[in-house]
């Protein structure tokens, strides 16, 4: 490959990645070279601006056609644009949250925080643009390793360390399983290029080869369940969310989870939708549907049931996040033809509502210095705006009409049923799971609105920081506006795919 070919690629389509990469590098260098006494307050806003700039450049690129760089290892298509938008929005909001994240004994937020968030984001963006198993794996690991450090960032806190340890051990096992599966795909097709793989698997037939391909499917899907916090690899989530600081938990539950789903879609649709099952009748994906169905059902049931038992708000949200992963798996389990937009919209909805909820949690938890649900007692009387904002987020997570969460669930259910009435089983599980989820979401609502003696309640010690106001404001607005006019988002989505 000479310079000529190298220059002939459309590097401009990687603009968003470059912006993130350069700003992360520059910030880490600045951090290295400026003295200890210098304030690093500007790091947060600088990285926020970088992410927003990346988002803007991504939007400006949206008319750009499909481009591939370096033998398909980087693909720029509508799929990557829409999902990267979610990742960027999610990270921007998380960075805003992180700006006012206070650790024990430490006045100022750590500067590593921000560039690690950005490298994690970079990994996630690479995952959504990857057209090759190698870039896919590298992106995944970049995201994972950044997340491991982010979880451990409160290094004086033994809980944080323990959470990070759990995360990294489980994560490494999951990546090893995933990698083992990927190695079989390479073995069967002789290529790591997803487009080439797709072509070759469609010619593969014969029981043994297809059987091996199916086996690799199991390795890969189980490996990915770690990233999306779905059963069987969901058990790290509660411990890690509890141990990590709130913005990191938000990052894991939103950005990391979205990245996991993006990669699942990429891999499953590219590799397994075109392959034949061992009996040679159906596409392999249809044959493997039952496994996704099982994973989804277990995830929904377990996530919701265990969430009922929780007293720690972050653990409860961790289990709720597990349950949501189960809901998002439903379109995959149903192999619904609309799974792109279903998953995309659900992830968007989940991003705005969950980050909003975590922002409120961050404020309340740090103000009360208590992570239990009791910390929310009488919040309506103490800080009305916060209570109302959290109310919106919770009813959106619960999927009550008028909020974006409802539309997202409705889409999933409607398209799963329209595709094949037999999917009513998984839909019913989803609905029953949602019903159970009302109980724990409403426990928080009841705590905020109905409990607490007016006289005993203390007003909050701290004012709401400006950055959290922005996050919560944006999230509330998005939750309601998209709940009433989902077409605002969906029209843009369809425009890209038309």
């Amino acid at each position, binding site marked *: 490959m000479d310079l000529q070919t190298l220059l002939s690629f459309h590097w401009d389509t990687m603009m968003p990645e470059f912006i993130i990469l350069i700003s992360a590098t520059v910030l880490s260098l600045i951090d290295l070279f400026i003295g200890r006494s210098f304030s690093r307050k500007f790091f947060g806003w600088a990285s926020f601006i970088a992410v927003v700039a990346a988002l803007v450049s991504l939007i400006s690129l949206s008319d750009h056609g499909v481009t591939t760089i370096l033998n398909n290892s980087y693909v720029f298509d509508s799929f990557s644009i829409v999902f990267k938008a979610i990742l960027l929005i999610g990270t921007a909001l998380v960075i805003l949250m992180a700006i006012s994240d206070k650790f024990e004994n430490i006045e100022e937020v750590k500067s590593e925080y921000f560039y690690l968030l950005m490298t994690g984001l970079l990994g996630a963006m690479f995952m959504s643009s990857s057209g090759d198993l190698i870039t896919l794996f590298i992106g995944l690991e970049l995201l994972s390793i950044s997340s491991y450090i982010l979880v451990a960032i409160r290094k004086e806190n033994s809980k944080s360390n323990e959470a990070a340890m759990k995360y990294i051990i489980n994560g490494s096992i999951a990546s090893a399983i995933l990698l083992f599966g990927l190695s079989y795909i390479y073995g069967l097709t002789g290529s790591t290029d997803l487009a080439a793989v797709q072509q070759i698997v469609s010619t593969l037939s014969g029981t043994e080869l297809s059987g*091996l391909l199916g086996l690799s499917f199991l390795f890969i899907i189980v490996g990915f369940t770690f990233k999306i916090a779905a059963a069987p690899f969901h058990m790290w989530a509660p411990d890690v969310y509890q141990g990590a600081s709130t913005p990191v938990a938000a990052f894991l539950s939103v950005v990391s989870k979205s990245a996991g789903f993006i990669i699942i879609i990429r891999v499953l649709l590219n590799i397994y939708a075109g392959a034949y099952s061992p009996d040679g009748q159906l596409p392999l994906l249809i044959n493997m549907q039952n496994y996704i169905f099982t994973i989804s059902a277990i995830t929904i049931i377990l996530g919701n049931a265990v969430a009922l038992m929780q007293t720690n708000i972050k653990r409860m949200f961790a289990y709720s996040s597990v349950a949501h992963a189960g809901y998002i798996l439903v379109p995959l389990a149903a192999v619904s033809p609309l799974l792109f937009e279903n998953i995309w919209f659900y992830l968007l909805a989940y991003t705005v509502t969950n980050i909003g909820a975590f922002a409120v949690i961050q404020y309340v938890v740090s103000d009360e210095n208590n992570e239990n649900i009791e910390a929310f007692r009488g919040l309506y009387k103490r800080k009305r705006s916060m209570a109302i904002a959290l109310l919106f987020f919770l009813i959106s997570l619960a999927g009550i009409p008028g909020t974006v969460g409802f539309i997202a669930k409705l889409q999933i259910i409607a398209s799963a049923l329209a595709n094949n009435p037999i999917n*009513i089983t998984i839909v019913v599980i989803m609905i029953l799971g949602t019903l159970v989820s009302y109980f724990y979401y409403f426990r928080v609502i009841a705590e905020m609105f109905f409990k607490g003696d007016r006289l005993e309640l203390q007003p909050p010690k701290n004012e709401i920081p400006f950055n959290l106001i922005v996050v919560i404001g944006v999230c509330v607005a998005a939750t309601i506006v998209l709940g009433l006019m989902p077409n605002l988002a969906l029209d843009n989505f369809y425009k890209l795919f038309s």
Partner: protein
Amino acid sequence: MIHSAWLIPVLPLLSFLIVILFLRNKPKLGSLVANCFSLITFILATLVLVGRLQGDSLLREWNWLEVGSTTITLGFEINALNSLMLFIVSFVSFLVNVYSLEYMEGDDRKSIFFAYLGLFTFAMLALVISPNLLQTYIFWELVGLGSFLLIGFYFYKDSARAAAKKAFIMTRIGDVGLLIGILLLFTQVGSFEYDEIFAAVRNGELIGSVITASAILIFIGAVGKSGQFPLHTWLPDAMEGPTPVSALIHAATMVAAGVYLVAATYPLFEVSQIALTTVAVVGCFTAIFAASIGLFQKDIKRVLAYSTVSQLGFMMLALGTSGYVAGVFHLTTHAFFKALLFLAAGSVIHAVHTQDIEEMGGLNKRMKITSLVFLIGTLAISGFPLFSGFFSKEEILISAWTSGNEIMFFIALFTAFLTSLYMFRVYFLVFTGETSEASSHAKESGSAILVPMLILAVFAVFSGFINTHWFGTYLSDFLLEDAQITVKETHAPTWILYAATIVSLAGIFTSYLLFGKNKTKFGESSFSKSPVYSIVYNKYYIDEIYDAIVVKPTRLFAAGLKFIEWFCVGGIMKTISGCIQFVGWIGSRLQSGKIQTYGTIAVFIFALFILVYGVTNGGLLK
């Protein structure tokens, strides 16, 4: 006018937003604003009803969301049934608004109360004009939310909080049934539109079992909202809310939503005999079940609550026995007289500050107007001849009889007897006899309370005449214009009319003997000093007979039903919640905190997958 019917729900929403956002701390202005909006809503609804009476139905829709090839629309529809409902809801809502001006006086959250009323009214009106099942479902949920807020209005009371929560959860169980039913229809028809679903049913595109299943699932939703057995237990508890709320939500509107839903989806029910029978049996059982419990309640609002459950059972019975018009007719008259009764009860509670009817007495001297309107309401609900309840209940009895189900007919007849018995029990204990201590300081309420009651009293008396066999079946003609159902010509034997009259009068008479003359009390003390003893002592042999043939069996019967409730309802609920909690407990125990346990569980499931895969695709193991 009919074209701007969408304004009707929007106005209460505006009222809600304005009051909650700007007038939260201005109770006077807030309540006035809410009242103005409520009045305009009522006028609009009346105009729409008039417009519909003179003109045609209307359907307007806009595309909202596209899921693949399916387009989900939003819109509104005006037809005979829902224009009538619009009128009832906005009318009762307006009167309750006026009434609350005085009733809620002095409450420092008065504005919020009015705001919630607005929210609830919005949801209810929007529910009524929904042209498709999805929109219906959305507002159905919102109605639940409004009711939750209103029941829990006195949230500083533990009981109110618990009641609000219970109401929300119990109705949610029904809602899930409804949602699944809607989705089941959606999978079969590919649309949420009422019209398309009915067309599919008419054209025989759906198989019978699907229709039956979806009808029953929709009915489960109605069971939850309308407080039918076994999901009725929230309704009596919901009396923790302020009394005007009980009048609005738990008499005239929300609980009627279940009946309305069944009526609105009637073409589905009509083609499935199993679904109809289910509706009839549940309704019939609920009617007698609730009536027998109502007989022994001491709290005036709880008596009314059980009577509401019982009357809703009547409506369901009517719908289940092909009495579409009878059900809707009773819904209409019941809305007026039950709202009246609740408002009158509120007026009494307002004056005597207790809800225990055995502590009241002799109020007719001190609260003449309240006493009069309560009597009117009681006569109406008892089916006293020429009062509204008389005509509608007769319709129900006729439909039960003509459907050929004699057992249900006689149960309904007996329930009608119980109804007048327990309703007059309340009347006699509260208003007649010696003035009790609690009543001795009572004063008649002010005009804001009295005027709405008087207006409702007029309706409670005369609303029955919109559908009689003597003057004309206006309602029936109106409703059947565009209800997509087949009408069976029925010729009812005239003796039903006499039977209903006799039963009603017998109930009143029994009640007079038991409670008017003797003030029999079922209170705790009566267990040790049984009423039987005192009655025998006083040598009222006739009372003894009544006691033996009426009170005792009824009490036994009620005890039996109570047991069923405790066993079935409680048992099922406990089992379900137990299962969920068990799963939760297992899940949380597995979460041992040990890293390697997590990994082991994951790998174990992974290995299980591989095993299953290996077995199902045998080639791998070869």
